[in-house]
């Protein structure tokens, strides 16, 4: 391919990796690279804060399954990426983050805008590179993309000193040679046999499914397996959408704000098949009393996850999709059982529900209405109550249509991630379900969305407070609302308008449907300010450190619309009883 500069080589690598979009923001040491970007077909989106570049690349990756790419200059640009990289790391999102660096001759001299970004990000990257020679660029980029997307995906950082982007090299894209990196994809047939036998023997099985199923595209195989053995399925926050929530076998989400019936099923199960999930403390509650009667089969592509938090009886290392497909073949058809009846009974008795008295708009109702109006929407969330309501009250039926910062719980993630998701899936309706606090953490990205004509719809569930923290103060700190009231929320409609976006507002229940319809029909960046009460709670709830059986109902009254749909007909009477 002949001689080219390091900067040109970088763009050539990105092209060879199929990259179509980069989110970034330039700076001094990146001038040579940005000069090459000027001539490139790859689209570059300027963000207004580098944190948003990382989140946008992450949202793009989660929505499309491709590797997301972001770029920031040395020093402050690079450190601004850190939260976004950590967010991607915790949720195993394939990302390549490029950072500018001072010239190799100045590294270690506290040069202007020097930061040791490979050092700073070491604990939150799957791998990282400091390029010291332009000739290494092709090898390093090829390896970086390969490492980011294979095995358990994750972010890889490439630090690019200015001089290596200027130096010339003979471009040659080498084969990958990584003797120390061998992701275990192939599942062991003996382990599958053992797992299948355990599933056939079990009387009270539960499938507990995490993001690994989404990343391996294993949702069809999951459905097949679950339906064959009639096993109830619960998902983690990362797994939301991997199993259709309107399927009778669905238990919805488990854990701290999971459904009562998912948590009860876990506690009563005699066998748990965990797939691509990592027994996070928000899922297990008190780990010592998690699933006390169950044998555990754990399928994970990352061997280090197996046995990390709970003891495992049958480990299966490998890709979730192949494991599920093998398991579905290895098991026989099972009949609807007394266990299924018992679980169905819990579903009828303890549906997700919320109180409907009062004048104000119910946040739960916002999500239910949105589902009815736009069931195919991609739902991205911020963090807090908004996130939990979005997980609970929108009926999720597809993987990659629910995008949320789970492991790190990053406020400010949702909006830039929604921009990335929309750019990756321009034909889908993308909503960011936001809190007023979270939205203000990356609200400047309205400019990015408007300039690039990205029609994301932000629905702010505006309670005027840092609601999730306040909920804990309400329940566990005698309503001492220390520093959770935001006092003055900017007028989001005017803010939207100031940036050139459409601003809409709903203050009363009667306005809700109309405003949501207007947002759905809008073809531009839209912010919907939905005024809700600061006293709304996320319910049910397992208090921190308690066992899953100790799940509390904070809001009793009307079952969710999904519960009503599920029980329409035969058991409608039970629901009426509950309402009364």
């Amino acid at each position, binding site marked *: 391919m002949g001689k080219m500069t390091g900067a040109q080589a970088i763009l050539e690598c990105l092209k060879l990796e199929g990259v179509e979009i980069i989110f970034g923001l330039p700076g001094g040491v990146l001038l040579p690279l940005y000069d090459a970007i000027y001539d490139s077909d790859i689209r570059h989106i300027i963000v207004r804060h580098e944190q948003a570049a990382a989140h946008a690349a992450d949202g793009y990756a989660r929505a499309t399954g491709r590797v997301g790419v972001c770029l920031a200059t040395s020093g402050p640009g690079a450190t601004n990426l850190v939260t976004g990289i950590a967010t991607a790391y915790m949720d195993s999102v394939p990302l390549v983050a490029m950072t500018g660096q001072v010239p190799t001759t100045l590294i270690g001299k506290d040069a202007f805008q020097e930061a040791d970004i*490979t*050092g700073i990000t*070491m*604990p939150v990257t*799957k*791998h990282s590179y*400091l390029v010291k020679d332009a000739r290494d660029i092709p090898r390093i980029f090829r390896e970086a993309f390969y*490492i980011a997307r294979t095995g358990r995906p994750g972010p890889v950082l490439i630090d690019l000193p200015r001089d290596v982007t200027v130096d010339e090299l003979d471009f040659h894209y080498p084969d990958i040679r*990584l*003797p*120390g*990196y061998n992701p275990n994809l192939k599942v062991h047939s003996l382990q599958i046999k053992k797992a299948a036998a355990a599933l056939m023997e079990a009387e009270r099985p539960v499938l507990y499914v995490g993001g690994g199923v989404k990343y391996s595209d294993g949702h069809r195989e999951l459905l097949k397996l679950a339906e064959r053995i009639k096993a109830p399925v619960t998902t983690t926050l990362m797994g939301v959408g991997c199993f259709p929530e309107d399927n009778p076998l669905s238990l919805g989400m488990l854990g701290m704000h999971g459904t009562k019936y998912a948590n009860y099923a876990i506690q009563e199960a005699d066998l748990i098949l965990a797939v691509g999930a990592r027994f996070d403390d928000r899922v297990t509650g008190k780990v010592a009393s998690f699933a006390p009667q169950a044998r555990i089969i754990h399928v994970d592509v*990352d*061997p*280090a996850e197996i*046995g*990390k938090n709970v003891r495992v009886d049958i480990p299966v290392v490998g890709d979730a999709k192949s494991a599920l497909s093998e398991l579905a073949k290895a098991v026989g058809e099972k009949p609807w059982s007394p266990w299924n009846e018992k679980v169905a009974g819990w579903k009828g008795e303890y549906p997700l529900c919320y109180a409907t008295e009062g004048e104000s708009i119910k946040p739960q109702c916002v999500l239910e209405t949105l589902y009815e109006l736009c069931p195919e929407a991609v739902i991205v969330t911020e963090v807090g109550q908004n996130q939990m309501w979005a997980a609970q009250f929108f009926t999720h039926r597809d993987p990659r249509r629910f995008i949320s910062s789970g492991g790190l719980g990053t406020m400010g993630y949702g909006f830039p991630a929604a921009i990335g998701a929309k750019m990756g899936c321009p034909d889908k309706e993308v909503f960011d379900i936001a809190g007023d606090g979270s939205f203000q953490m990356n609200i400047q990205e309205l400019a990015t969305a408007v300039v690039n004509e990205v029609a994301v719809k932000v629905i702010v569930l505006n309670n005027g407070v840092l609601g999730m923290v306040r909920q804990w103060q309400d329940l566990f700190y005698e309503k001492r609302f220390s520093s959770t009231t935001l006092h003055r929320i900017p007028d989001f409609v005017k803010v939207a308008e100031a940036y050139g976006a459409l601003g809409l507002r709903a203050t009363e229940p009667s306005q809700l449907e109309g405003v949501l319809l207007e947002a759905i029909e809008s073809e531009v960046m839209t912010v919907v300010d939905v005024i809700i009460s600061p006293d709304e709670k996320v319910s049910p709830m397992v208090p921190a450190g308690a066992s899953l059986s100790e799940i509390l109902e904070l809001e009793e009254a009307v079952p969710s619309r999904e519960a009503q749909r599920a029980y329409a007909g035969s058991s409608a009477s039970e629901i009426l009883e509950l309402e009364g």
Partner: protein
Amino acid sequence: MLHTIVLIVENRPGVLVRIAGLFSRRGFNIDSLTVGATDNPDYSRMTITVEGDEVVLEQVTKQLNKLVNVIRVSEMDPKESVDRELAIIKVAAKKEDRSEIMQIVSVFRAKIIDVSPRSLIIEVTGTNDKVEAMVRLLRQFGIKEMARTGKVSMVRGTKAVGP
């Protein structure tokens, strides 16, 4: 319990930091760590002794295996392996103590590698226990300075830990 792990790692800048960082981040306790060349210039060999139960050991091994620059991780079975440590010890050596010190040196098959009017430098090689025993005996004379390499370990017989 102390476990000995041998690693073959790529000989690249930053590898040591990745490994040390992993131990501190995950709360594993390193007792000793040595790094040195192998026969192949592309790889280095590390011997790490780590404190913890079987569960900790399993996590350490699995987490180390995830590092891209780590080629091989093997736990050493104490019965199936040999290990050595080297120490050099500067010990105060008054005239009247010299002969006793020399005796200890010869019993331990150690060596005196530097002599000066008031002190000697002794080199001792052996298992961790042997080095410890020698140090204990020399303490009575006054140890002025000590440098120890930490343990290196190798499987007995023809089996090899290599890349």
